[in-house]
């Protein structure tokens, strides 16, 4: 059981670093929802920053890959993203088609390199 939970310290860190900062916005939405102008300039900026942070997270996984992904050469990871994106655009923005195409490139490329 202890290996399932790991150490309790990590779980406490999860709540402080992940759960509370995330839930705070949902609860604020629940409490103050009525009085906020959704078209306000502040929300436009906030949404742009949130999108860019998400983009940074995506870039981090591809540029500084964790674990097994680090065994794949840089050019192949970038190639998989580019190929997936091309198929995504060509398939009239099908997320599914894009993901499958990117996966085929990375798996075939890695298999081929050995």
């Amino acid at each position, binding site marked *: 059981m202890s*290996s*399932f*939970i790991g150490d309790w310290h*990590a*779980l406490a*860190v*999860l*709540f*402080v*670093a*992940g*759960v509370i*900062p*995330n*839930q*705070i*916005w*949902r*609860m604020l*939405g*629940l409490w103050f*929802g009525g009085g*906020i102008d*959704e078209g306000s300039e502040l*929300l*436009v*900026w*906030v*949404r*742009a*920053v*949130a*999108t*860019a*942070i998400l*983009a*940074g*997270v995506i*870039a*981090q*996984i591809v*540029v*500084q890959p*964790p*674990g*097994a*992904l680090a*065994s*794949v050469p840089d050019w192949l990871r970038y190639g*998989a*993203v580019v190929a*997936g994106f091309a198929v*995504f655009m060509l398939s009239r923005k099908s*997320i*599914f088609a894009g*993901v499958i195409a*990117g996966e085929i490139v*990375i*798996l075939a490329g*890695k298999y081929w390199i050995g």
Partner: protein
Amino acid sequence: MTAGHCHDIAALCAASLDRAFRQPYSATVQTHSDTPVALPPLDSPQWQTSFRAFLWGARSVGSTVLTLVLFATYLGIGALAHDSGFSLGWTLASTAFVWAGPAQIIVITTLGSGATIVQSAIAVTVSAVRLFPMVVSVLPMMRTDETKRRHLILVAHLTAVTLWVECFRFLPQVPRNRRIAFIHGLGCGLVCVCLIANTIGYALAANLSQLLGAGILMLTPLAFLFSTARNCRELADVIALVLGLLLFPVAALLNSGVDILVSGIAAGTIAYGVHRARAVA
């Protein structure tokens, strides 16, 4: 005109108002509203109990392609957590209690790469702001005169981009007094799918060859990139996405521990600047 009709019209108005206000997401909403939803008619006895409505919600998990995307994403998050050294219990707790893919990935990647708790918390706080307008726009769709705030806590918790999008597709076909139960069912169903995906991804990352392990880890960036790209409609969103991708490697050179925050705020602010400049011109 019956009370049911009034509610329905109110819901439709809410949905169309919302589309007008929240343009970046409306592209997704429109695509999905084309597909018919197999739910009983509004006056069916199937809607007589909350429990039935809950079950209909849980069943609806099977009638959306987004479930598949979510499954792939959480398969990737499970694998990512494993390769970053977190336990399975920790991973499942993060899915159940955070319930927002981007925030979970930020916590895993930042803590896994040695950032401090405060740095991770700041990055998560900023990334989670998008949940605020989602909650604000979803709750009016299921409020009735008897609804208390505490009845909506679980709905607020379950609100994330997938549920948010599906509310606009499903809720017009659910009687208003059963909507909270329906969303509880749908949300809990989605959480269960993701917990299963986490477990499978975690186990696969532990046991698979490097080839397939790399493939699973790659699911997360691909699924997030395309779902974010699909939600872009205004120029500001596109610029934020593209600049956010390009500026991260630059910010990473600083090695500040908050690289994502630096590139995110810079790219987002530039995108907002372009939005303002166009509005003025």
